[in-house]
């Protein structure tokens, strides 16, 4: 199967190169990037063919593409890819507006290609075990959920993450979608209402929020919070955390998806002190699943709808922060 990557703007593209190369029968034909400096750099680094325009890449007729452009620029790339007949794995959040997300859906439906949203945490074995535990009723009725997906400021890796016109926002747009998706998936309920507070306490040089706390109400009355802040310093031992505490009537479960790590101190490394994970990479499971869906023609395990609903939670958070009251994400048009 011939697969291409559209844009190296998002830093996850680098991991996906390794993930694709580990799958037998997949040929990574190269990547497109309109930023020549970035194109040359990653072409050399990974020994990959670089296409200066997305059209050039699509002319090679890849069967599937991974779209890792900036959040606000995914729509035209998805439309182009779909029109050329390529199945799409889109980085999250899938878009920065309801209109863009719906246009993407129309494009893939019209072309009859698959669309998968990149939510890798669904492929973490610990997350899957938690979901099974909740489904089995072992915890009893779930009373409360406390979630943390805070991190360092990603602008140190790619400046656009902290530029509103390209990222659609800051910390909330970057992170809240992961836990919003896991909540929908694990508790099998939609998000009924979002209350959020945002601010910029950590970086006066950017014009987006670097702090965001969301307090959701899931359908059926389950309070669930998300800390999406860029509150870890750049010298923190790892990018950040994905944690979730689930309090049930019969017991509690405490998830720390990246708990398995060595403590590593090295001189002259990127981080002097680092938490080096020894788990398998959840991205691998996600990319494997995408390739399997394309190969077998089945519905991908994470759909456009999943990406759309998570994005609406992030958008609702901005509305709530502006209005000071709760916002129902399903009413965002």
């Amino acid at each position: 199967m011939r697969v291409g990557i559209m844009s190296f703007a998002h830093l996850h593209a680098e991991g996906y190169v390794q993930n694709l190369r580990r799958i037998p029968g997949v040929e990574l034909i190269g990547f497109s990037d309109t930023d020549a400096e970035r194109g040359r750099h990653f072409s050399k680094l990974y020994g990959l063919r670089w296409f200066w325009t997305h059209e050039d890449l699509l002319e090679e007729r890849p069967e599937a593409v991974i779209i890792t452009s900036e959040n606000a620029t995914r729509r035209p790339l998805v439309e182009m890819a779909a029109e050329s007949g390529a199945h799409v794995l889109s980085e999250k959040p899938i878009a920065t507006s309801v209109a863009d997300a719906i246009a993407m859906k129309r494009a893939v439906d019209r072309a009859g290609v698959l669309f998968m949203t990149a939510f890798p945490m669904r492929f973490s074995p610990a997350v899957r075990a938690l979901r099974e535990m909740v489904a089995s009723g072992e915890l009893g009725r779930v009373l409360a959920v406390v979630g943390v997906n805070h991190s360092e400021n990603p602008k140190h890796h790619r400046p656009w993450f902290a530029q509103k016109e390209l990222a659609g926002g800051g910390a909330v747009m970057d992170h809240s979608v992961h836990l919003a998706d896991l909540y929908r998936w694990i508790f099998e309920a939609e998000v009924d209402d979002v209350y959020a507070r945002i601010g910029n306490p950590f970086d006066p040089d950017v014009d987006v929020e670097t702090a965001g706390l969301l307090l959701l109400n899931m359908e059926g009355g389950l309070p669930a919070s998300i800390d999406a802040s860029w509150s870890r310093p750049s010298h923190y031992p790892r990018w950040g955390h994905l944690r979730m505490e689930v309090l049930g009537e019969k017991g509690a479960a405490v998830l720390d998806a990246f708990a398995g790590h060595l403590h590593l101190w090295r001189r002259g490394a990127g981080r002097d002190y680092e938490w080096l994970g020894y788990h398998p990479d959840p991205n691998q499971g996600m990319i494997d699943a995408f390739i399997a869906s394309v190969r077998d023609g089945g519905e991908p395990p994470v759909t456009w709808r999943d990406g759309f609903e998570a994005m609406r939670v992030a958008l609702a958070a901005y509305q709530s922060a502006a209005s000071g009251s709760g916002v129902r994400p399903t009413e965002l048009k």
Partner: protein
Amino acid sequence: MRIGIAGLGTMGRVHAAAYRRMGARLVAAYDADPAVTERFAGEFELEPAPDYESLLRSVDVVDVCTPTFTHLEMAETAFALGVDVILEKPLALTASEGRQIISAARESGRRLFVAMVVRFFPQYRKAAELVRAGELGRVGVMRLKRVAFPPAAGWFRDPARSGGMPVDLMIHDLDYARWVLGQPASVFARRSPALEGSALEHVQAVLEFPNGALALVEGGWAYPPGYFRTSLDIAGDRGLVEWSSDQPPPLQTLFPKDAPPPALGLPMAGLEEDPYELELRHALEALESGAPFEVAPEDALAALELALAVRASADSGKVVEVA
């Protein structure tokens, strides 16, 4: 490849569960106690073998999880009948028995894999890779801990049948130290005298390597019931790596605290990857393909010799040269 399992105690159960999860062809089971064989075979939907030779005649590879003092006879019988052997550690009770097992494999043309599972724990493997890649510079001091509560009454508690704690438990870290740093030159060990005369045992050993690196290896069966703690700490002149089983796992559960402690504690590797599955998958793949095992029989023998050296040093109070 048809697999049979012999010895249906704790490790037999762990291995059977791992084979089941990986979808391997585990077909038959045997235990010296026919009632245990019947119950186990029923539970795992296997053919119950009335005796060991019947088991061997129905499989291509046998996974031997019987007590250590039976390993020599179990392995020799399997090789004589043309069956490959996956043997739970330790290889044997003595170095001479270990050598007999290895030569029986060689003479029969069959293969022997000794299940040194710590090499398949992802955190131990990652730390070893860091050392090999030179990320830590020259290793100066390595610390390895493996402490558990005393095993339940039975052959484990009898050093004449289990080899005692160094041969049964500490051997994991002695093998790991040797895997990462190579063969040591000398071993000096002290056993806690306050525990003498009981089934409890706690030993600390200092290993010295030819290049000057040192290792402190701690092993014990003296912790309160329910505890099994392991850790590694490798310090080089350019980097340091630490890990401890005290770190929280990826998923913890909090239920009412009145559950009974486990019968025999095994370290949990976390949910992400089961080291027993990784280990047995490796053994089966190497058997299929003819590729060499990551743990050669000679490595298992060298680890046993180190464990025996630790025991001898603790007994004599003298340094044992092992180079």
